[in-house]
């Protein structure tokens, strides 16, 4: 019995669109009915939505307040340094894409050309110049990374590490606010919109990570005091809604600190978010730690590695890799949770949306404003999720 060299799949598996349609959508008369009914439903829903988007909705409210949505009340004459900060981030992004994700030209082009695309929209000339500047810095970063990937790796990592302080410093400014000028200090009461949401998210995520890690390790500690403290902290914070923690940070903290000392309101929100997120992160990390087989600890101990070195070199790299999807989920949820600071009176993206809606000329445009804000949240959340998937692929999770 001779087998042919290649065996083709059954006929139904290798045919065209029509066959696929007939097979999947119109297999029986009932299938056909369901398909027609389904298409009708989609048509009705989409028709209503599209009609609203293109004819009824008044998007002027978004266009007129775009600057508010992006940066809140940040003074116009100091905006340049925010663009510079954004340029720095795009430079690093271009650089990283070229070094670690060389094959995905499309992603690189999409990310780097996005500001250029925006520059074709009817913004004022100043904004357009800055948008072109963004694409330029991104492209330069990409080119540098592409030409010399090995040599730049450490510099880029260092760049990312110092990027947060740089961005915060650029946002805050350096010189006396009375004197004015491009680098004058801008009070946090003027920080707002996406800028504030972004800073809250990044700060809360970055600082809650080490804190959560220590809490997770503390919960497994053999020293009772450390273990009890960790358990107590985690359970206490997880048992309280975030909004109450934010209220406590805003209203009760001043009662505890010595008189006259004023802690910045944005800083208080950042601390509240960090402390809250850390408790959840600790439980996620603990889940990852528990997934590591006992044999890994034993092998490391048998080699003479100390408890700390066993954690650093053997257990944590495996545990953290396992929980990357959960960690990203947590980062995204922190990002969305920052919307709660609007309730304690900060002007983040949602807070700005509320102020915009309270202006007399924009009253009643809730749908437009909240649709726009939701879209912004979704785009950024999806971007984080996408990055995490790429990270997982490049780290080879699930393949070994």
């Amino acid at each position, binding site marked *: 019995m001779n087998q042919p060299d290649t065996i083709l799949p059954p006929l139904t598996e290798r045919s065209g669109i029509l066959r696929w349609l007939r097979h999947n959508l119109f297999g029986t008369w009932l299938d056909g009915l369901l398909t027609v009914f389904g298409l009708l439903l989609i048509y009705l829903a989409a028709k209503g939505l599209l009609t609203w988007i293109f004819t009824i909705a008044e998007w002027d409210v978004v266009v007129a307040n775009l600057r508010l949505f992006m940066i809140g009340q940040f003074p116009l004459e100091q905006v340049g340094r925010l663009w510079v900060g954004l340029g720095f981030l795009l430079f690093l992004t271009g650089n990283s894409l070229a070094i670690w994700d060389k094959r995905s030209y499309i992603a690189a082009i999409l990310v780097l050309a996005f500001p250029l695309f925006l520059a074709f929209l009817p913004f004022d000339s100043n904004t357009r110049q800055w948008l072109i500047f963004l694409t330029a810095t991104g492209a330069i970063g990409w080119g540098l990374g592409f030409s010399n990937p090995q040599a730049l790796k450490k510099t880029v990592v260092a760049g990312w590490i110092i990027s947060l302080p740089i961005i915060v410093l650029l946002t805050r400014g350096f010189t006396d606010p009375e004197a004015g000028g491009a680098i004058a200090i801008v009070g946090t009461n003027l920080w707002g919109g996406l800028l504030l949401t972004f800073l809250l998210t990044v700060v809360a995520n970055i600082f809650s990570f080490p804190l959560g890690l220590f809490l997770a390790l503390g919960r497994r500690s053999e020293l009772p005091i450390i273990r009890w403290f960790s358990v107590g902290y985690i359970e206490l914070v997880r048992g309280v809604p975030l909004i109450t923690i934010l209220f406590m940070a805003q209203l009760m903290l001043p009662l505890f600190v010595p008189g006259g000392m004023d802690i910045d309101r944005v800083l208080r929100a950042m601390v509240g978010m960090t402390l809250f997120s850390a408790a959840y992160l600790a439980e996620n990390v603990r889940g990852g730690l528990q997934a590591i087989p006992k044999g890994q600890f034993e092998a490391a101990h048998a*080699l003479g*590695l100390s408890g700390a070195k066993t954690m650093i070199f053997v257990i944590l790299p495996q545990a953290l890799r396992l929980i990357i999807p959960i960690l990203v989920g947590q980062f995204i949820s922190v990002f969305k949770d920052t919307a709660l600071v609007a309730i304690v009176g900060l002007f983040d993206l949602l807070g700005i949306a509320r102020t915009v809606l309270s202006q007399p000329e924009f009253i009643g445009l809730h749908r437009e404003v909240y649709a726009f804000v939701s879209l912004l949240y979704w785009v950024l959340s999806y971007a984080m999720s996408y990055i995490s998937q790429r990270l997982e692929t490049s780290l080879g999770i699930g393949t070994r």
Partner: protein
Amino acid sequence: MNDLKQSIITVNDVHKWYGNFHALKGINMEVAKGEVIVIFGPSGSGKSTFIRTINRLEEHQRGEILVDGIELTHDVRNIEAVRIETGMVFQQFNLFPHLTVMQNITLAPIQVRKWDKQKAEETAMQLLVRVGIPEQANKFPGQLSGGQQQRVAIARALAMQPKIMLFDEPTSALDPEMIKEVLDVMVELAKSGMTMLVVTHEMGFARAVANRMFFFDQGQIVESGSPEEIFKAPKEERTKLFLSQILSH
């Protein structure tokens, strides 16, 4: 002959309980430098527990254990000192899956012995040649067969230049065709003069290189002697019965 040599492991009346279960009931053993000891017995007899007390992966609750002159107590420094002198090979290999073969082997020498990377990698390469898989150095453990993984595990333990090697059923998780490649490495190691404690049911290995054999049952040493004595003239009924069961096919 062994009595003349220096003793490297001294185990004196060691007891161990898991809750109320008495796992080790007064174990005594002297091991001389360069000796190869084979420990065998039915499952649950305490043989694995015993070998794991030698490097304190299991804590004993009574009696004393001295390894290379260091007593195993609660003192972490003593425990780490003993572990540096003692290599261990596990049934499930326990390689670090996120590290390459080379990184698995060099991790402890670099972190614990404080060797520089180049020296550690040269030594690792020599060991990989010795266990017969130098071409696998840059692969990850998941890309190797079971037999290759176990040989990497042996190389990893040897990289710390231990004075004693402990083997906890090193071939039990292997497919039959891979057992030989691991045993060959162990025989070579035994002949090089390494002090070895091996928990195994590979009686061919015992016959070839063991100096003494210990039969464990229900947490006690039932019988001990040279392979000749154990195989030809076991004194205890339980030993006879067990040997007949594992040698019958």
